[in-house]
C-alpha cells in the first residue's frame, strides 16, 4: 500500500483498494481542504466514497463530479484521481481555482461503480454495469447510466437484463444511483453535475431522452464550445459537443438528464479519449495527457458556474 499521496503513481492504473487508500492519504494530508463522505454502499456492500473539497461556509453552492460509473472506462477513474490531486495542489496557487473553491464546494466521486470496478480487475476487464442480481435472469448487473428517473425505460435503453444498456427494474433501483440521488437532493444546492465517461471525445448535455432542446440549450452549447476549445489547446485533441440525442443517439434514464430535470442547469457528460484505437484499453501512458486536457475543460465549466450562480 502507498504510504503517502506523494508516492502514488498517477500515470498507472490502480485497483480500488489502492485508490481508496490514496484517498485516505489525501484527506489526512489536507484536512483543511478535503474530507471524505460515505454516501451509501454498493450492491456488494462496498462503501461509496465522495471527496468533499471545501474552504468553509455552510451548504455552499456545489459542483458534483463523478468518474467510473461505467466500470470498464478505466481512464475515467485514473483521471479522477489525478484531478482530485490537482485540486489540492493548485488551491492557493492558481488564482482561478482558488476563487472557485472560495465560492463553491466540489464533491467528487472517483469510483462511482465500485463493484463493477473490482470485477474489471478480478474477472472481466470489459464489465460495464453494476453487479446486482436480476430476478428471473442469469445475467447480472444494470447499466447505471440508464437507471435514472429521466425518461426511464424508454427505447433508448434495454429491457433485457443481458444487454449492456439494461435499465434495471425501476428508476434508482441501483444503490450506486440511489445514493447519489439522495445525496444531491438532500444537499439542495448543487449547481453543476459533471459525469465523466470514456471514450469517443465528446462533451454532451441534455437532453438524451427527448428531442426538444433544453431551455438552457444555447448557454450549455456555448459553454461546451469554450470547454472543448480549451481542452484542444493542450494536445490538439478534438471533441464534438452538443445535446446527447443530437450528437450520438437517444439515451433514456441518464445521469445528466436526471440532474437537469432536477434543477441542475450545468449538467454535462464527458467522453474522454480515444477515437477507437484502444477504447477502454487506453495505455497508461495516456492517463496524464488525458487528465491534463480534461482539467482545462473542467476549469472552463467550473469558472462559468462560479461566475453565473443562479
Amino acid at each position, binding site marked *: 500500500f502507498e504510504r503517502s499521496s506523494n508516492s502514488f*503513481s498517477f*500515470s*498507472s*492504473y*490502480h485497483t480500488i483498494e489502492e485508490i481508496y487508500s490514496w484517498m485516505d492519504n489525501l484527506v489526512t494530508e489536507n484536512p483543511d481542504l478535503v474530507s471524505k463522505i460515505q454516501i451509501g454502499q454498493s450492491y456488494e456492500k462496498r462503501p461509496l466514497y465522495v471527496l468533499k473539497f471545501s474552504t468553509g461556509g455552510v451548504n455552499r453552492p456545489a459542483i458534483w463530479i463523478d468518474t467510473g460509473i461505467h466500470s470498464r472506462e478505466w481512464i475515467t477513474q485514473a483521471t479522477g484521481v489525478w484531478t482530485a490531486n490537482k485540486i489540492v495542489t493548485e488551491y492557493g496557487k492558481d488564482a482561478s481555482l482558488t476563487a472557485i473553491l472560495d465560492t463553491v464546494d466540489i464533491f467528487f466521486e472517483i469510483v462511482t461503480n465500485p463493484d463493477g470496478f473490482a470485477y474489471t480487475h*478480478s*474477472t*472481466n*476487464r*470489459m464489465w460495464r454495469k453494476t453487479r446486482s442480481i436480476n430476478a428471473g435472469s442469469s445475467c447480472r448487473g444494470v447499466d447505471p447510466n440508464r437507471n435514472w428517473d429521466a425518461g426511464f425505460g424508454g427505447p433508448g435503453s434495454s429491457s433485457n437484463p*443481458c444487454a*449492456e*444498456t439494461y435499465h434495471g427494474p425501476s428508476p434508482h433501483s441501483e444503490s450506486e444511483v440511489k445514493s447519489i440521488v439522495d445525496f444531491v437532493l438532500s444537499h439542495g444546492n448543487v449547481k453543476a453535475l459533471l459525469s465523466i465517461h470514456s*471514450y*469517443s471525445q465528446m462533451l454532451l448535455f441534455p437532453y438524451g431522452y427527448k428531442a426538444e432542446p433544453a431551455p438552457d440549450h444555447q448557454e450549455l452549447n456555448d459553454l461546451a464550445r469554450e470547454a472543448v476549445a480549451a481542452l484542444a489547446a493542450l494536445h490538439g485533441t478534438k471533441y464534438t459537443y452538443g445535446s446527447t440525442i443530437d450528437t*450520438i*443517439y437517444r439515451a433514456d434514464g441518464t445521469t445528466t438528464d436526471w440532474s437537469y430535470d432536477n434543477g441542475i442547469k450545468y449538467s454535462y457528460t464527458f467522453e474522454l479519449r480515444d477515437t*477507437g*484505437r*484502444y*477504447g*477502454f*484499453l487506453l*495505455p*497508461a501512458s495516456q492517463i496524464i495527457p488525458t487528465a491534463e486536457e480534461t482539467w482545462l475543460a473542467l476549469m472552463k465549466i467550473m469558472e462559468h458556474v462560479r461566475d453565473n450562480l443562479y
Partner: protein
Amino acid sequence: QKLFVGDQVLRIRASNEEQIALLRELGKLEDLQIDYWLSPAQPGLPVDARVPFHSLQAVKVFLESNTIPYTITVDDVQELLDEEKEAMMVSRK
C-alpha cells in the same frame, strides 16, 4: 478469470439507416456475444464492437455480405490486457 484470447475490436462504418438497423439486430443475437463499445447510433458515426473469437467469422461474413465496411482496430484484446496488467505490476514495483 475471463480471457479474451483472439477477440477483436472492429470499427464499423454504416453508411445509412438500414445498415444501422442491421447492426442493432446483430447486437441482439445473444449467441454471438457482441459487445458494442460504441453502439450503432447514426450513419457517419463509427461503431466499435468487440467480437469474441468464436463469433469473428460469422460477424465478418455478415458485414461483408451486407457491404458494411469495417476495419480491425484491436487484433487481440487479450494481448492488450496482458500489456496493461504488466504495466500495472511494473508501476507497483
